[in-house]
């Protein structure tokens, strides 16, 4: 009888396909994964603790640095949590600017997802096209905020700056290009037989399982559960826009990939409507110079590109948060990784990991 032996291999933390500094120890029986142990914490900066030593406004730049790919949602979640705590009414124009910026940021994040998933599976061309289109989005965001990635754009009570001159025209000019790019990406990757063979039916997640593990956002919708905070529990001015919630059918890697393509189209739709509906007016509410929320606590959730993002802030009445906790969607998403991996082949590990859409700055916070 031939004796077989389990071997364990270490992937990361410095590995090109682990999206940053993620490490996982895989136990293999031949080609099959029998055990997997994710090791997180290589990018831990202690943002929750740092926030306790910063004033409420000074925390905003740190929220960017959790999910640096879709940073605008993180700004939005934080400032809305504080506004909820202080009872600040935000001017309408500011709300619309926030929606435009957040949706642009969501598109950029999904572009990176599409690109990195293709790259992880060995398709370099599939990486190039989304990044070409992401450049358009980043150009718009750079024009609006001055930064390409870590924006620090939102303020408690409004936004930092009004729309610059020519922004609306340029956005209207770029949105069709983004849609065209999505069609190209779909034709390039979604029809590819090799890609389909490698993703369809892989790492299927049922709705019950996704809910049990606390998944939200696009990953949950890929399983077929129609839930989007922007529609189900509207915040900001999202209740005024018409858009669909795309859902998948099986919750496999293919659905999770294809859903992002559909979501980019919906985000473009929201921006188009917001550009038409944006009113004139102030961009900042009347906020005291020194922000001192009343004693109390608040929890606020928004729909981030990677799932449901929640901020829990406790105030003791001083100028600094007493405690801040962030429910980061990437951290929740990565929790199921071990379950998904056991029983699959080593070559599929990269695909599965790419498909759950995590960014390590968000996992470790």
């Amino acid at each position, binding site marked *: 009888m031939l004796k077989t032996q389990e071997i364990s291999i270490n992937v990361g933390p410095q590995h090109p396909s682990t999206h940053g500094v993620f490490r996982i120890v895989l136990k293999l029986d031949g080609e099959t994964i029998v055990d997997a142990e994710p090791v997180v914490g290589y990018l831990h900066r202690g943002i929750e603790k740092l926030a306790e030593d*910063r004033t409420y*406004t*000074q*925390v*905003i*730049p*740190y929220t*960017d*640095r959790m999910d640096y790919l879709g940073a605008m949602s993180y700004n939005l979640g934080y400032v809305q949590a504080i506004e909820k705590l202080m009872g600040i009414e935000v001017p309408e124009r500011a709300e619309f600017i926030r929606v435009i910026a957040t949706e642009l940021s969501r598109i950029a994040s999904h572009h990176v997802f599409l690109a990195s998933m293709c790259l992880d599976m060995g398709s370099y*061309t599939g990486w190039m096209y989304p990044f*070409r289109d992401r*450049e358009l989005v980043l150009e718009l965001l*750079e*024009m*609006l*905020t*001055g*930064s390409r990635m*870590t924006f*620090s754009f939102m303020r408690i009570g409004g936004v*930092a*700056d009004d729309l*610059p001159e020519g922004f609306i025209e340029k956005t209207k000019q770029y949105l069709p290009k983004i849609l065209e790019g999505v069609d*190209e990406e779909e*034709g*390039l*990757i*979604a*029809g*590819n*037989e*090799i*890609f*389909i063979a490698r993703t369809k039916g892989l790492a299927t997640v049922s709705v019950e399982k996704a809910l049990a593990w606390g998944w939200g956002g696009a990953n949950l919708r890929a399983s077929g559960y129609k839930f989007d905070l922007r529609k189900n529990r509207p915040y900001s001015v999202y209740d005024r826009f018409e858009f669909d919630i795309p859902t998948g059918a099986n919750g496999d890697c293919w659905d999770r990939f294809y859903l992002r393509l559909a979501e980019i189209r919906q985000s473009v739709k929201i921006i188009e409507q917001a550009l038409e509906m944006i009113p004139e007016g102030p961009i900042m509410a009347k906020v005291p110079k020194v922000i001192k929320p009343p004693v109390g606590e608040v929890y606020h959730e928004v729909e981030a590109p990677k799932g449901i993002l929640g901020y829990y802030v406790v105030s003791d009445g001083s100028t600094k948060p007493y405690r801040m906790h962030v429910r980061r969607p990437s951290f929740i998403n990565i929790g199921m990784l071990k379950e998904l991996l056991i029983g699959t082949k080593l070559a599929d590990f990269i695909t599965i990991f790419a498909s759950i859409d995590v960014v390590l700055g968000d996992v470790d916070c």
Partner: protein
Amino acid sequence: MNGMGLLKGLAITFKELWKKPVTLEYPEKKEKLPPRFHGSFTLYSEKCIACGLCQQACPNKVIKVGSIKDENNKRKLASYEMEMKYCLFCGLCVEACPTNALVFNQEYELAKYNVEDIKLTLFKKEQITTGEGSENV
């Protein structure tokens, strides 16, 4: 039919052959940056009143404003230093400035060879310890 998806993909890449390249030959050619770009900093020292609001606004304690009192007991700027290695480029300091003395400029090639060179000294008076003596706000 098997293989049709591949051909469709190839047709898309083939179309790209006739388009202009999307990349830029970077060090030779440079992108035109928007006016709001968060680059390095410029200080109009004649406008600065050494109030230290930028220093207070900074989340990372990057900015150090030194000031002296002149003969009329008026605070004047003596030195302005920024530890750029800790800078987040969030723009809270620029926003806090009441006289618009501190602004972003368009420089973005900020990598330096030596660690000491990272420190950005925007203003330095020759003799800080004149009169009443130097004082940090």
